[in-house]
């Protein structure tokens, strides 16, 4: 029951403390005709400072798994520890505080707030964390993703790729220890995609940020320390 499967686990990372640990993680939803298991008994660890790529076919359950790991959704069974804290022993509020402290998240479909400008969207997590110079920091991060001249634009005025970069900047802004990103380069051309990948790995290198990325992008998956494959909701050994 406590068997933790670690695909391709290099001996080096076993010594580092795990920042994410999942155990028997299962998500099941009821549809009118039958019970659908989206993620089945996933158990693994991610060591602090590692970069991990979650790969798999469309509809295999990658986004669902990522959401569970970040505590954005509650599992039907199983547990998740983030930095040693039992995520689902906390209430909704506790999980939010934990995320505020440790976690950045990039949604597959961005989820920017339509009423806020690009700058305001990036400022939001900083303001919530009570950072004093939120505006300055947010515009610096937007500059890093190449959007210095789009600060005052609303999401509907931005292209899909630009929105994605705002979403990435928002997740970066608080310099989290742990960053979940659902296809962060999915909408980007290869040049911009490379910029964003550089950004991610610079954070990983400079701040020791742990990266957990869902991606179809081979170039990106190849740069990661590890790869977790998922197929029809089952994490492959």
């Amino acid at each position, binding site marked *: 029951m406590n068997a933790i499967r670690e695909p391709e686990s290099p001996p080096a990372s076993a010594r580092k403390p795990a920042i994410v640990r999942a155990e028997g993680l299962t998500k099941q939803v009821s549809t009118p005709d039958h019970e659908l298991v989206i993620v089945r008994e996933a158990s693994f660890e991610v060591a602090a400072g590692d970069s991990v790529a979650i790969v798999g076919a469309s509809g295999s359950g990658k986004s669902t798994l990522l959401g569970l790991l970040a505590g954005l*959704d509650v599992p039907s069974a199983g547990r998740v520890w983030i930095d040693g804290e039992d995520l689902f022993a906390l209430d909704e509020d506790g999980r*939010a505080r934990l995320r505020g402290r440790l976690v950045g998240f990039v949604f597959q479909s961005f989820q920017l707030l339509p009423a806020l400008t690009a700058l305001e969207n990036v400022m*939001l997590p900083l303001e*919530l964390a009570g950072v004093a110079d939120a505006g300055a920091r947010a515009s610096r991060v937007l500059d890093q993703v190449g959007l210095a001249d789009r600060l005052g634009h609303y999401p509907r005025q931005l292209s899909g790729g630009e929105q994605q970069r705002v979403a990435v900047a928002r997740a970066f802004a608080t310099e989290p220890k742990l960053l979940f990103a659902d296809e962060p380069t999915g909408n980007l051309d290869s040049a911009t995609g490379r910029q964003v990948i550089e950004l991610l790995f610079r954070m990983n290198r400079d701040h020791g940020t742990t990266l957990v990325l869902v991606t179809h992008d081979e170039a990106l998956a190849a740069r990661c320390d590890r790869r977790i494959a998922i197929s029809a909701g089952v994490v492959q050994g």
Partner: protein
Amino acid sequence: MTNNFAIALRMLRRNAHSGEARVLAAALLVAVASVTTVGFFADRVRGALDRQANELLGGDLVVIADHPVPAAFVERARADGLAIAQTTTFPSMVAGAAGTSLAEIKAVSSSFPLRGRLRVAPTPVAPDREADGAPAPGTVWVAGPLVSRIGAAVGETVKVGNASLRVAEVITREPDNVLDFFGIAPRVLINDADLAATGLVQVGSRVSYRLLVAGESRQVSRYESEMRPRLGRGERIEGVRDARSEVRVSLERAQRFLGLASLLSVILASVAVALAARRFSLRQTDGAAMMRCLGAAQADIFAINAWQFLLLAAAGCAAGTAAGFGAQAVLAHWLSGFFAVALPAPGWRPAVQGAVIGLVLVLGFTIPPLLRLRNVPTLRVLRSDVAVAEPSSLFAYALGLGALSSLIVWQAGDTRLGAISVGGFAAALGVAALAGFILIRALSRLRAGASGPWRYGLANLRRRTGASLVQVMALGVGIMAMLLLTLVRSDLIVKWQKSMPADMPNRFAINVQNDQLPAVKAYFADLGLATPDLYPMVRGRLVAIGDKTVSPADYTDQRARRLVEREFNLSWAKDLRPDNKIVAGSWWKAGDAAPQFSVEEGIAKTLSIRVGDTLSWDVGGARFTAKVTSLRKVEWDSFKANFFVIASPGMLEAYPASWITSFHLPAGREEVVNRLVERFPNVSVIDLTAIMGQVKRISDQVSRAVEFVFLFAIAAGLVVLFAAITSTQDERVFEGAVMRTLGASRRQMVLTQLSEFLAIGLLAGMVAAAGAVGLTFALSERVLGVPYEFDWVVPVAGLLAGGVGVAIAGLLGTRRAVDSPPLAAIRAVT
């Protein structure tokens, strides 16, 4: 087209589970149900009040003639299924064991009275009871003074003309007597089977014949309009409103109160439906843009959506009307004990009003967003959340609002009341939009000084200026309607009731002669009662206004015709009484010898008399003419003697006049009246208690009815609140989920929402308080005739209701954003 209809039906079935369809359905149901309930109920209360007041007449309508009422009138009433009674009244001497006296004999058919009851007792001082009908043949009922004057105690025999009749009861109250100021002698009531035996009714004797009719109000008014053109010389038709100004004034005021209350509930309901319909339509039109991308023709999209809205509106209106009919039946059942008469069946009008208002509301607020789509490029629709306002959609909104305004005026049943209210609310809406915009901008400036979540909440307010404004306006108008209704319910009705103090005059004494004036005044002074003011009175017929001869046929208005048919009581005075107010022109100055008239404003309006017109009168065959120099406002329900027309001194003194006064007779001092009548046998005292009771009852019943209307308004108000809060709920839930993802704590989430809702609520409260104060001022002075007093409670209550109410409702409404996992919330709204 059938294809579009089928698609619309399918889409509607799928939409039925969406949040915005449910809010719209709920709003529509409450709106239509409350409009119809209140309408039905107000209709029935109006009917009941009229019917009660008709007790003062003994029937719903009376045909009066100086000769036997022509058979055609009786036959027509019978054919129309109306109840009838006949009376024949004349003065005559009656003789008893102890003497003889002049009496006013009234012979009545067994069905008399059709409305109300006489009260009788075995002796003048014994407790009285309600009589069952009228005297049986062979018996007579006599008024109290006759018992001692002629020895007419119960069981004795009195002679009326040639007939000897046994006294069966002593009359203590005759409800319809008070209408006839010129019944100068005590009453003797006999059965009309004995009339011939008296031998008193002969050609040339002064006899008044009356035919009373009663029935369903529709039938009665049909009878009236059919028979009025057939009135001959010496014949007239009267209703209770023609006979007593006090009753007319309070009935009218009661109807305005009811009208106002139901109007306010319509406005509340309208706001709720408008909000919900607009949101539903905006949601649908998103889909419409998508359909266009998929190749649907614009006309088809329009048809499919329009069909959907129409189906939804029709279903909601039908359900609402049915619910309204059921609710008013329950309501009427509960209240049945409170009304002295059975509530008449409701008319069809409220049902139509409810359904039409529902339809206009739904279509008026769903079609414009749809029209807006027409000329907008598909890509624009998909990319931009603010599409340009198109002239056709603005026109459609204006059309919807215009139709709604006229419906509201229709519902109010009073043009002036409706126009002032609709105007007031429209102004409030305009001011709310402007003030809201400025305040939202100003508040968002404040955010620099605010901390964390407050700052974010206030910033949100500005970022959503459009939606926030709609919320402020809707909530502002909603709270304003509730405040007004509270005011009407408590304040205004109480003021109306207070305007009838306990020591109000309850008796009129009439027919005092010139030479009796000092003695009558002394009589009251000797008994330690206030010396009453006596006013002179001369009977005259209005013959011409300017050069134009006045004839009933000149007036289409029924009241005007009736007024012209009758004789007026003219009075004269040197000084203006403090309880009369000049509203046009000016009162004559001391020493101004020119003959002139001052006319009561109501009758001036009815008869189209203006300051500067000359009036010609016929008084006992003599004719005189003078200019109208002022119009007066009179408080009819003060129960003081008042006159439609007052002449300046020097004009009427030469004509035979009698004097009239009103006084308050404290309970249990009936002897004051008895001795007065004994000392001055020509003087008649009229008991106003029945009329006053009627007027008091009207105000009591209206206040009770308004209470019930208030309950419906609260339901409608809650729907407004709910619709306004949910109008931005999707965004909030989504924002909440994103904020949660970014690590916002519960406190931050709650404070963010709270600051925004508090700001919206306070803005709405300010708008509502200002609007309610302004509109109460306009309504109480101009429509309800109740003096206005500024009350601090109103603005404070408005602010509190707005701020606290909206904040609490808002927090409850967005709890979902705080308590559910972010992914679930995001999935639910996108």
